[in-house]
């Protein structure tokens, strides 16, 4: 007798949609956009976009400040601030504006310093073409934003969020030649068993299209080669007891590293501060620092 797979097939989506609607009703006071990026072979990546932003980071209209009920409490709606047009051109990331998650204006590039935290670690990696290389080669020559992720991660505050943020940065860099020429994004999977170069290539195909900053994706050949690299970066990864955990088989803290051209880590971001505006402000701060150093090194001071 033929199994009623068609009935099962109809029931499953109904159950899931019902679950989804129930949860959405519970938290109806917040608004999110979720973009499904479908790669080849049916893999699905989810990029969570922060409220108040569209997928392309387009500018938000200038708005009055949000309504406040009493001092110290603001309305739970996004308050956005649009820079004057000249600032938006010089720093296109400012067009993102404030959000409920990042409700502030970033500092001016160069108005602060980023102390050296520690040297960026090195180790053998596999590139998307399956060839071996060194992580150092990915970092050399450009200011680098390095993130550790794995594609099976379903924690919206971790890997999908990191991917979304780096994608946003890359999109912005398409409008800024200086950033595009001087910045490299590197995404490093710590799940070599699943995230083979082929899997990563499929997963990232849509992300690698277009112009903008170079974006490299790497993994390692084995866990044995992975562990020393993670240790050098202080990126802790634990295998969950339940391999079928809904958030993925690994638990980890989101960590994204800003690395200067000398291979030194200059900032570390995690959930709560992975604001693309801040990351790009830091990149610009490093570029200004390089320019200053270059002028100081010139015998005539650059004149």
């Amino acid at each position: 007798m033929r199994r009623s797979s068609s009935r099962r097939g109809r029931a499953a989506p109904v159950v899931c949609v019902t679950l989804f609607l129930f949860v959405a009703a519970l938290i109806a006071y917040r608004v999110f956009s979720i973009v499904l990026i479908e790669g080849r072979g049916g893999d699905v990546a989810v990029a969570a976009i922060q409220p108040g932003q569209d997928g392309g980071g387009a500018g938000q209209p200038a708005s009055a400040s949000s309504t406040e009920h009493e001092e110290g409490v603001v309305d739970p709606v996004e308050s956005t601030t649009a820079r004057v047009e000249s600032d938006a051109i010089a720093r296109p990331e400012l067009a993102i504006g404030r959000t409920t998650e990042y409700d502030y204006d970033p500092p001016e590039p160069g108005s602060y310093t980023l102390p050296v935290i520690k040297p960026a670690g090195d180790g053998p990696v596999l590139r998307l073409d399956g060839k071996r290389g060194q992580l150092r080669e990915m970092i050399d020559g450009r200011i680098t934003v390095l993130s550790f992720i794995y594609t099976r991660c379903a924690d919206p505050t971790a890997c999908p969020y990191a991917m979304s943020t780096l994608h946003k940065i890359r999109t912005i860099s398409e409008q800024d030649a200086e950033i595009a020429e001087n910045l490299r994004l590197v995404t490093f999977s710590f799940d070599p068993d699943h995230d083979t170069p082929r899997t990563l290539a499929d997963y990232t195909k849509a992300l690698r299209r277009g112009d903008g900053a170079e974006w490299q994706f790497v993994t390692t050949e084995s866990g044995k080669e992975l562990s020393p690299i993670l240790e050098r970066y202080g990126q802790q990864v634990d295998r969950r007891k339940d391999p079928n955990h809904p958030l993925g088989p690994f638990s980890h803290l989101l960590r994204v590293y800003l690395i200067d051209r000398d291979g030194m880590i200059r900032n570390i971001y995690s959930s709560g501060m992975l604001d693309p505006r801040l990351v790009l402000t830091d990149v610009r701060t490093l570029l200004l620092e390089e320019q200053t150093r270059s002028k100081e090194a010139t015998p005539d001071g650059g004149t």
Partner: protein
Amino acid sequence: MKNRPRKNVQRVILGSLVAAVALVGLAMPAVTVADETCQSPYMPKITGQEDFIYVWTLGVEGWGDGSDKLVTIDVRPDSKTYGTVIHSVSVGGRHEAHHGGFSDDRRHLWVSGLDSGKIFIFDVRTDPAAPKLTKTIDDFSKSSGGVVGPHTIYALPGRLMISGLSNDKDHGGPTALVEYTNEGDFVATHWLPTDTDPRGADIEKVADGYGYDIRVLPRRNAMLTSSFTGWSNYMMDFGQMLKDPEAMKRFGQTVTLWDLHSRKPKKVFHVPGAPLEIRWALGPTHNYAFTTTALTSQIWLIYEDSDGEWKSKAVADIGDPSKIPLPVDISLSSDDSTLFVDSFMDGKVRVFDVSDPHNPRQTYEKEIGSQVNMVSQSWDGKRLYFSSSLLANWDKKGDADEQFVKGYDWDGKEMTEKFSIDFAKEKIGRAHIMRFGAEDL
């Protein structure tokens, strides 16, 4: 082809589940990622019951080895050793053990000595029931450029921010914030603004350059620091200090607002009377923080007004200020509705309804002991823990010098004692800061 309908179902399932998780996860207030409500928002959260309490304890001569130690108390409700000390690590010597904090990955607990300046780093991940000392930083003052008295140790991504209490020039209050990597290497020093070097900050009245606590609100890119007193006071006998008019002038009267990302001070509020612990509200639209003043016994509110200006004001008295109950540690509930305020001199905890942060209202009080300092609460607000010691030379004398850790259940109306450990009778030491540990983390 046969698998295509199944794959479509899988996509819908995955997409729906992830979307549901995303909506649920992101519906939580942005900074609710820690247990004890005072912890850094960058840390993972202990959900449910805490398993252990780590108590950084001052050594007392003649009590055991007389050294400072990290003590572990079992608070698993079904454990046979519930409410008892199950582990202890002595660090050798008395350093004026005081405060401590976790790294952002919660794998290490850093605890410090206000006198020696040493910082002890414990692995609390390998075996949460038995912390292990893995590293000692013994050049804090030298590396930082003269900062003395590492006090609050606060997790930032991949780093720790440590507040000083003093400096090695005059052992007075002017001091700095110091950054370290999670691995224990010095990164940077950020001096508090002073009247002679305001570092770009707006000064409301005075900039004393004093330090004490650090708390951040990432959503607003804001950091607050408070102000206490320098080494020459906190290492002095309490009674002697009270009789010294010059010493009594050397207490902090400022709270400083910083740009968290750039580490630049923006504004120095005038908050007289030594503002100590700071607690940011946790609600996603709550832009305010509480502190209390030790010498003037007031609750102060630091808040953003309707024009986007940050301001400060006193909002309530704690007990009878004329009797100087000496408010010390505070704890804000995860729903921002309740503020627990300990006062050292009368040994009491006072509970305030702070649903309206501009008008706190006391709803309950209880005497915990002859003296009380620290209070830690569980995320669900149902359990409270108290410890006794303030400073070795400031704790009471004789029979009034009770040393303890006590655990209570709190149902919103009444505190019920669950366990009490007499740290004097057990000859352990002066119990100070408490931090939660969990096996599942």
